């Protein structure tokens, strides 16, 4: 499995983004962990109040499972370089996420390496690893 190379400021931005992305309540999410998986996009839903990704991942037992990843609304994703057509059914991607504490496949989206080679976040990173734009909440 390929790891996404993250620089210091990007990691700082990611951690701030996730902590601010408190969402409704993200108590079920393990904010201390970031996991990386490779998988096949089953669905990319571009919607308010949250976009989401469904990605099929083969787990360590060799069984396919669907990861549900909660994302920001489109108004934020656009600023981070996304379009509704950025990902489609069948795309092979590598993503990072903050996983659920209870082990269910899924969690809060952090980043994805899309087929054109870019690594996309949910918020536009600012210079010097400053805090990202404020996050929407439900």
């Amino acid at each position, binding site marked *: 499995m390929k790891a996404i190379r993250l620089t210091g400021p990007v990691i700082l931005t990611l951690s701030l983004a996730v902590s601010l992305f408190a969402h409704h*309540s993200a*108590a*079920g999410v393990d904010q201390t962990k970031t996991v990386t998986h490779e998988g096949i996009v089953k669905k990319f839903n571009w*919607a308010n*109040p949250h976009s989401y990704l469904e990605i099929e991942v083969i787990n360590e037992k060799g069984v396919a499972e669907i990861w549900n990843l909660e994302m920001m609304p489109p108004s934020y994703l656009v600023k981070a370089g996304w379009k509704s057509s950025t990902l489609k059914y069948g795309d092979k991607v590598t993503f990072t996420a903050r996983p659920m504490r209870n082990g*269910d496949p899924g969690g809060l989206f952090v980043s994805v390496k899309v087929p054109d080679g870019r690594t996309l976040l949910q918020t536009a990173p600012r210079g010097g690893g400053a805090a990202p734009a404020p996050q929407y*909440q*439900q």
Partner: protein
Amino acid sequence: MNKSRAGRVGMVGLVLTFVAFGASDLLAQFQPAGTLGVLAPANIAKSRPKAPFDITGTWLHTQGENERFDPPAGFKLTPEAQKHYDASAAAVKEGKLYRNDIGLCWPAGMPIMMTRVWPIQMIQLPTSIFMISELMNSMRIVYMDGRQHVDPDIVVPSFNGESIGHWEADTLVIDTTGFVDQHHWIQDRAGIPASDALHIVERIKMQNQSKRLEIEFTLTDPKSWVGDWKITKHWDRQDERDIAEVECLPDLNEHMPTVHSSDNIREK
């Protein structure tokens, strides 16, 4: 008379009865006969003192300010509210959620609908102020035309309550009552519930050349806590923002693992 004809006749009779006796009474329940709605041109045209400021605009709760309504130091909850508070604290300790109603599409309700990190558009008329949050397009109408609160025995409980406003010098004062008694939280993450006895007074001032709003909230709810809670919060004008349709949809929500996790404790 066959069955379908009897049904039709019955339905016509019901409608006629409603028209003859019901409709005017139903309308009259909420406002005295002859009262004009806030958008009636004749109501808008009535002579009133000029408003000290115009709140019309798009507003966002000031970033970096606590968006939750945390209780003041030394707060005392009623035994019933304390049960929820303790259960919520226990759930959080285990990394679980306690009655995450907002995540399950229940309206946030007042006062926390004002401080979601979503813009609120406000439109001020001489008779009323409309406030529409982008999140779930939740709406408040503040009645400014001199009416009083509806009789509490007939008011229809709601998540945002019934808001009556007036001006005191340069301050807009809004008095809100008439709340639901379930699925409504003052501090959802701490498990502090709102009851149907909730009463909110907002004292609103315009600041910084009309670019900032300050609202001092006084919250009382004798079914949930003892005494008054006072909290002051701010909003910044967002001239480059508009709001869109934002609905909390069941099928979308099924894909939100933080909402539909088995860790969302519902029953207690």
